[in-house]
């Protein structure tokens, strides 16, 4: 009995240290948490809200705002950086806010939105789970308009190109901050094309006058993944054609899909790594059919592919090993480091800070009782829909 008690205590202590270890080493999160707590309390008790008002000073009018932010999943690298930036922005605005993790499940997100509205949210910021589905986004807009509160969508598309404006145009207190889904694909394709034109002979390892490429797709049925998969190659080919060079050729002629997709739909490095390892076992330099170019939907997959290449002695970044050009999207810190080390070639930067800034600006409008889209002229607004703001992408090939 004594022994068991001891063991339990030991385990508990370890668990507790694990927790405290996490929070004490956080730089900004504890502050976040505390502000969040005081502000959540304030929504319950008006007296306390006034205290917050006093300390917030000139931003006093925003303290009535109760913002609910829904992220499609906490596990997404890019979304995590948006979350950090947005939390910081909302903290500095002095508004009450609550973050929700929808864990890649639209049902969960809808339920969370219902809960948030019933607890008195005055503004919804939604990173929708099912991207590009009018039905899913319309249902959420309807919830917001029934409650009469403004809603800001961000990052993931709320409607396909064909139905542009059907959802965003249906409610005047609604806005979208995101990226133009095809843009990343176009930019990646152009970057690849230009790189290949410049380095054609060194890329063409077997000297057959053609570049064979591998393509790793993040998720089936995701608009961003589809566009990146399509334009990443099409635009590169357009550049090659303009320079009288042959088009890129998929490495496995029997695969009619011309991509390999993460079957769990998580854009994971593991999937890319497993595919690449298997690919390299039959497509390599000894067989004279080596994969000469790797295109990935995101940087995570690029890292997985590079890891597989490393095992076979490629892309070691030591100046002597051969380097297969690998391209990604997102410009994560890890990818930037790989590019600096010469292990990766290029990526497309998604501006997390810029997106958070823009969302915070709209939040200020909405919370201050102004029109959501007030004073947004300096932003890049879609030509077709007046309440759709695009945060531009940028190519990144090193500092």
């Amino acid at each position, binding site marked *: 009995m004594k022994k068991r008690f001891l063991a339990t205590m030991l385990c508990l202590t370890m668990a507790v240290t694990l927790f405290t270890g996490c929070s004490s080493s956080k730089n900004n999160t504890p502050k976040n948490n505390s502000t969040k707590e005081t502000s959540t309390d304030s929504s319950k008790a008006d007296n306390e809200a006034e205290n917050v008002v006093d300390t917030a000073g000139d931003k006093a009018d925003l303290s009535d705002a109760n913002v609910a932010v829904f992220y499609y999943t906490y596990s997404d690298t890019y979304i*995590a950086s948006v979350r950090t930036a947005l939390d910081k922005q909302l903290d500095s605005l002095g508004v009450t806010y609550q973050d929700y993790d929808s864990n890649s499940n639209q049902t969960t997100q809808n339920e969370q939105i219902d809960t948030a509205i019933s607890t008195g949210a005055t503004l919804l910021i939604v990173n929708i789970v099912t991207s590009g589905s009018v039905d899913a986004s319309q249902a959420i807009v309807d919830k917001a308009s029934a409650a009469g509160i403004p809603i800001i969508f961000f990052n993931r598309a709320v409607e396909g190109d064909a139905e542009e404006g059907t959802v965003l145009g249906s409610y005047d207190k609604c806005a979208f901050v995101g990226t133009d889904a095809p843009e990343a694909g176009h930019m990646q394709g152009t970057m690849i094309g230009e790189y290949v034109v410049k380095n054609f002979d060194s890329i063409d390892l077997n000297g057959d006058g053609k570049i064979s490429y591998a393509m790793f797709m993040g998720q089936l049925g995701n608009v961003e993944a589809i566009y990146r998969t399509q334009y990443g190659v099409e635009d590169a080919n357009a550049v090659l054609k303009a320079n009288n060079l042959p088009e890129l050729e998929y490495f496995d002629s029997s695969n009619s899909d011309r991509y390999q997709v993460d079957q769990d739909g998580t854009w994971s490095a593991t999937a890319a790594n497993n595919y690449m390892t298997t690919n390299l*076992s039959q497509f390599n330099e000894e067989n004279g059919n080596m994969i000469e170019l790797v295109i990935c939907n995101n940087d995570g997959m690029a890292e997985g592919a590079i890891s597989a290449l490393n095992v076979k002695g490629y892309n070691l970044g030591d100046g002597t090993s051969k380097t297969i050009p690998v391209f990604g999207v997102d410009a994560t810190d890890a990818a930037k480091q790989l590019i600096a080390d010469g292990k990766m070639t290029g990526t497309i930067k998604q501006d997390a800070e810029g997106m958070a800034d823009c969302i915070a600006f709209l939040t200020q409008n909405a919370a201050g009782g102004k029109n959501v889209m007030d004073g947004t002229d300096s932003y890049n607004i879609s030509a077709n829909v007046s309440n759709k703001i695009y945060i531009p992408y940028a190519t990144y090939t090193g500092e």
Partner: protein
Amino acid sequence: MICMGVKMNMVSNVKQGFVNYKELDKKDKFNFWKEALINNALYILLIIAVIYTYTQNQRFLTVNSIVNIVSLSAANIPIACGIAGCIVLTGTDLSAGRIVGLTACISASLLQSATYATKMFPNLPVLPIPLVILIVIIVGGIIGWVNGFFVAKFQLHPFIVTLATQLIVYGLLLMYIMINGNNGQPLSGLDKSFKTFVTGSVVSLFGVPIPNYVWYACIVVAIMWFIWNKTTFGKNMFAVGSNPEAANVSGVNVMKTTIMVHTLAGCMYGITGFIESARIGSNQANTGLNYECDAIAACVIGGVSFVGGTGKIRGVVLGVFLLRIIFVALNFLSINQNTQYIIKGLIILIACAIDMRKYLVRK
């Protein structure tokens, strides 16, 4: 001499079998073949699949490709060996994948190279590898212990317990990768010694390097085989798996055994996390997601039954290989991704059906 004896024994066994077979009448003979065919259906299907893939794509059976299959399987062996123990106890473990994710991120953060710009713990020197292995085994073991404790103490079904711990571990993992301003960015920039230790190679087969983690998987298999077959704990595990009440009456400490099995499983996930960390090279919150599905499928295909109390380490290893060979073959045949889900599902379904059928016949 012993070898000769075994040989003689085998020969006489086969002879005896043949005599028995001859004594059967026509109907029984037909049944004999039918049974043999169904009981080995999986292996027969596998052989057909291998031959078919080979005829379609000759590169399937090159040394390169075989080493690839072996190394991909090796990466999955520790987690499958761990989960197999839980299945022997008629349980399961849904937290396996997330524990792999957590331990992978822990290993990566402790073994980032000192010069890496966005290092999680900038002031931490690169720790000695054995220490990190010990840490992840302990972390995995603690979570496994918690699983086992709640299963044994409160008689909760492992499905519920591990469903809960899986969420807890995921939460911890999300917190872990946010600390020190890492903000959920993937953990990479691993130290060279770590990468070499796991993915480097000391032995080559016909010029194709075999990654080191294959040998680590072999060590894991040897240890697990010893634990399952040569220790009292192993015998107790099977006793508890087939009938906990009977085991209790015959003096087996059911609670201790259950906790130990889950703790051991947790340690195995820790090892898997350590290997995955270097093998993939990029560790984030998604790492390890759904790993338990493939591991459970491999165990069941290998004959570790959910009925409890049956299963062999040999079967687990075979199961992992079978599943992996099919996955790789689907790639070599360039089968459409949508169809791949269906084929995977069918394989698991058929394997389980054959497994249960054996059990029903025996009953």
